[in-house]
């Protein structure tokens, strides 16, 4: 059976799919690819079934060697790609295109110039054993295939759906969009609520007009932001624990919001002032520490 051998891991790389459903009441969240749109594009390029598993690499740095002839595609955060053949010949490859790897070829993903999460899909899908119906690793619950280490062998499965019909797709967001803290920053669309009435009018105004900075404490659980001032509450009561939606802007006691990503807790005890749109959730999953964001809320 063909496989990808992991020859280098950057900061952190995991296997993900569309996530786990039906375990919220047992305290297990959905997980799955943090930037779902990029993962879906990679899946489409290699013509996999929608639920096929792929690799999510944080800050690039991933390298894999093909065992057997394998088609792959890389999407998400923009990284330089090189392919080194078994004979040592180096060729460049591009993101958002179908890449054919021969047996022994090594694909190296460099450091991203924009975005933080890069997706590597392999035709047939990564076929590690599913846990509770999903191959997603949930960093909060500690469930799913373990994060990748050098030497891991990722078996290639048979989760295809027809044959590739495109060999390149348009990237979903520009390589330079909002990178490097340039004004006015990335704009994230969202919807007020469910608990906007727990906040002071000044907090709602600040959320609509303020520029927020992504902090280094961000991960798959959430993008932690620092605002120009705390978002003050109108209701100071303790919120009875309630379920949290993906993309929630939860505001802890200190008043600086967290955008909940794929591994967010199932329930939380702090009010959610707004929830991002589907597209904005994927964009938020590509925010790098130091980047600035603004919110456009309905």
């Amino acid at each position, binding site marked *: 059976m063909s496989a990808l051998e992991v020859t280098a891991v950057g900061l952190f790389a995991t296997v993900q799919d569309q996530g786990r459903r039906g375990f919220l*009441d047992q305290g297990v969240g959905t997980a799955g690819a943090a930037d779902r749109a990029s993962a879906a594009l990679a899946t489409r390029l290699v013509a996999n079934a929608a639920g096929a598993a792929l690799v999510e690499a944080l800050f690039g740095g991933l390298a894999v060697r093909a065992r057997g002839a394998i088609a792959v595609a890389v999407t998400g955060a923009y990284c330089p790609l090189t392919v080194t053949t078994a004979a040592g010949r180096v060729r460049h490859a591009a993101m958002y295109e179908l890449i054919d790897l021969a047996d022994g070829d090594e694909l190296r993903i460099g450091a991203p110039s924009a975005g933080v999460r890069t997706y590597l899909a392999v035709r047939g899908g990564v076929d590690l054993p599913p846990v509770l119906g999903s191959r997603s690793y949930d960093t909060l619950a500690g469930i799913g295939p373990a994060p990748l280490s050098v030497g891991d062998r990722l078996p290639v499965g048979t989760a295809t759906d027809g044959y590739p019909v495109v060999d390149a797709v348009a990237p979903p967001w520009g390589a330079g969009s909002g990178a490097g803290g340039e004004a006015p920053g990335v704009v994230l669309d969202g919807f007020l609520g*469910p608990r906007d009435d727990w906040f002071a009018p000044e907090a709602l105004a600040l959320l609509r007009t303020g520029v927020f900075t992504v902090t280094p404490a961000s991960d798959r659980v959430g993008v932690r932001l620092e605002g120009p001032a705390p978002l003050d509450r109108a209701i100071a009561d303790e919120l*009875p624990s309630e379920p949290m939606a993906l993309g929630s802007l939860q505001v802890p006691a200190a008043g600086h919001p967290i955008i909940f990503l794929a591994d967010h807790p199932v*329930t939380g005890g702090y009010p959610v002032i707004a929830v991002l749109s589907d597209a904005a959730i994927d964009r938020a999953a590509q925010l790098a520490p130091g980047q600035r964001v603004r919110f456009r809320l309905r």
Partner: protein
Amino acid sequence: MTPPRVLRAGERDVLVEFASLTETVGVRAALDRAPIPGVTDAASGARTVMLHFDPALTTRAAVEAAALALEPGPELAAADAAAVEIPVVYDGDDLADTAALLGLTADELIAAHTGRTWVCAFGGFAPGFGYLVSAAPSLEVPRLATPRTRVPAGAVGLAGEFSGIYPRESPGGWRLIGRTAAAMWDLARNPPALLSAGTRVRFTRVAPS
């Protein structure tokens, strides 16, 4: 019943808020018996149920209308239904302090904890952690002012209106009254969680082995 409040949570979720925990548990059970078409996942909180829907299958308006029409079942009051039995050694570090906060002796607190049927209202915090509530008079105590950095697996605690069991070692701020050897989370079991929303629980007192 007071009509629930229906709140928007983004493009794919509706948060339904009820006046009481009893209604929340009852509605959640009703929802499990008669799912709303197009709702692909649901989660409960202390006063809320979140309905996650697929916009390809239904509309927000249809989910909201169905949510407003939910009638709670009698789950929290039906004390005679079958319950999961959880044996507990009542020797928690906070047993005496917690009893004192409630104006009880340690034995009276243990009798109150074992002498009622608990219902799992919702899960969260960690895989297998269930927030247990009871229709009997409350054993409500505040969380510890300073959470412990390490609570052992199997610790049985009280906090707010809830009782709960830590499925694995973790930090935690609940007041610990005992410990159990019952496995709260086991991936080899189906379902892996011993407790999930609607599960009924009786605690029994056992001697340390």
